[in-house]
């Protein structure tokens, strides 16, 4: 990635990068304050500000500060079922079997409403349970940032 130009300020003649992992603690300097080095605060300039000179650095940073998506859950993939099924007319575009005289086309699509409701409720339960369990790690990560 690009770390040149304004992205990596040079301090006092020596080509010292002020952004980087130093002594295990993530520190950052400012152009205006020269060599003044501050611990990272919660608002972080992104993109070309030089925090992520390489992909590897970014990973370290994420691990250190708990920056990855914290609400990630594999259960969310289950939500694809009630999204994809109603979008496939091949499944329900027929008259038989009828229910109470209603063609399959209509009662099947109304039935998808129950499916969606059930799947969402299930995923919600699983995600909140996982969050409660993993809440401790998230909290520690949050503390380190804040």
């Amino acid at each position: 990635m690009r770390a040149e130009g304004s992205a990596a300020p040079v301090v006092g003649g020596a080509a010292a990068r002020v952004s980087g992992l130093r002594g295990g603690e993530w520190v950052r300097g400012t152009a205006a304050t020269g060599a003044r080095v501050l611990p990272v605060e919660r608002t972080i300039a992104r993109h070309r500000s030089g925090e992520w000179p390489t992909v590897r650095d970014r990973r370290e940073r994420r691990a250190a500060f708990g920056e990855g998506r914290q609400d990630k859950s594999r259960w969310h993939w289950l939500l694809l079922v009630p999204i994809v099924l109603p979008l496939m007319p091949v499944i329900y575009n027929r008259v038989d079997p009828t229910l109470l005289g209603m063609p399959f086309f209509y009662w099947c699509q109304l039935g998808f409403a129950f499916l969606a409701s059930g799947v969402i409720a299930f995923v919600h339960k699983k995600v909140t349970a996982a969050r409660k369990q993993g809440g401790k790690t998230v909290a520690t990560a949050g503390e380190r940032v804040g």
Partner: protein
Amino acid sequence: MSTQLTVFVVVFGAVAVMGFAAARWRRPDSIHTLEEWGLGGRAFGNWVTFFLLSGDVYTAYTFVAVPTLVYGMGAAGFFPVPFLVIVYPMLFVVLARFWSVCHVHGFVTPAEFVRARFGSRGIGTAVALLGIVATMPYIALQLIGMEAVFEVMGLPKGWPLTLAFVVLALYTFNSGLRGPALVSIVKDALILWAVLAVLMIVAMTPGQWDTIFRIAENRYAITPRTDDGLVLPVQSQLNYVTLALGSAVALFLYPHTLTGVLASRNRSTLRRNLAVLPIYTLTLGVLMLVGFAALYSGVQPVGGNANTVVPQWFNENAPAWSAGLAFAAIGVGAMVPAAIMSIAAANLFTRDIYRVYLRPYASAREETYVSKSVSLTVKFGALLILLLLNTQFAIDLQLIGGVVIMQTLPAVALGLYTNWFHRWALGLGMGAGLVLGLFMLWQVPKLGGADGRQVVREHFGGSAWPLDNLGFDTQAAIYVGIVALAVNLLVAVAATPVLRGLGVADGRDLTREHDYVADEGDPTVRRMTEIIDGEPVPEEKPTSFFTPVGPRRGTPSAQDDDPSRRAYPRL
């Protein structure tokens, strides 16, 4: 005065009183902040959120126009059911993140979020403008729903509609979002009654659904049209699927949906509601089947207004008092979304145009006043569109509005997940999507006549873009919005690396990952007391681009003991 009209007037009067009284409901110390007036204090629990969201999504126009579609075409008009099923699993993933980031930063509109996420005033303003443009005709459509009821009751076109709207405008002005929230409880009760009435009336017809569907099938077989029937003809399937998908995407992006969402108390409230709301789609489904029931009882629309099919069916088949309740359901069902939409549009104007360009240091009180006035203006604008221009014009505008609002997807929805997009790439994508979308809509002719193949009007005749424009030998069509959105995404994705390569400056992202998962009780989520105080958290001006905004470690200030104060500059 007929029984129907009496029932309607009584219910409507009660609703108006409730709307005004709502200002005293959970009365805050001061209603003069946008969070109080425009979001009801951001503290609605499970039940109120359910009523508010259902009142917001299932509008009067849907209840009136969609059964009319089914009446005319059969299966192809049934797309709102899959649309309103797939939308909830989609929302489940994104809405909680949107709720969190808005609460942490005190955002009231999606445009504010975009501005902070991509560090671009321009993109924020564009999102706000597109939101307002898309919402205005939607309000006018609610009036069309109400107009259909008035027409069946034999009222003239002008003053009853104006009167109803003045009442609506006044109580929205007075109570803000609390008004529609309270009224939506009445609306849902009435809708539930209407659904039960449909089921009972059908249960009493000889042969029940069996006969109704058989008669509908015969009817579709007789007509010379080829695109109607009890199941989808092959050429309609692509349009059916893309229309359902596109409508689902658009629903998330409409500012009024997001306003309803932001009013909920916490993430779980929201997610629990999303699990229940698909069931509400069943009520819409049953009312759509009224389209078939109307074919069975040979209902003819009143005065050539096709939208009167549903009210007219109730008028002919239900007892007078019950028909009155059904009319009231549609009437009140128009009031709730119209109020929320006007509030959403007004908030967009206040937070993203007024405060950004006109008065950056407007106080909370001034903001609220501006929002209130704009909500009045917006509503009367919609009324004027309908009374001075014509109904068809409002419907066409709404069609365009749906395509327009979809173009904000990369910024608003994808923005919740990534700040990878370059701000100018987002702008380019949005522009490309809009131009292409409008051009394609312009190309679609309006078809009519007995067999539905004659060209009635050359341009802006619908949202189903025939694929034979591309030279394919087929009758299939595709929803314009989806194509425009695909192009929008392609341009945004392609332009981002190019712009970075050219060294065009990126915007600065003022959010961080933890903002997107913060929940009620999290120190970063602003407490209501602070929001009610209304004054912005004092912002430290950064000395340079690299200075972190906000208080620093090692420089303790008086606010340090209160974590919520430490959090963020108001954007």
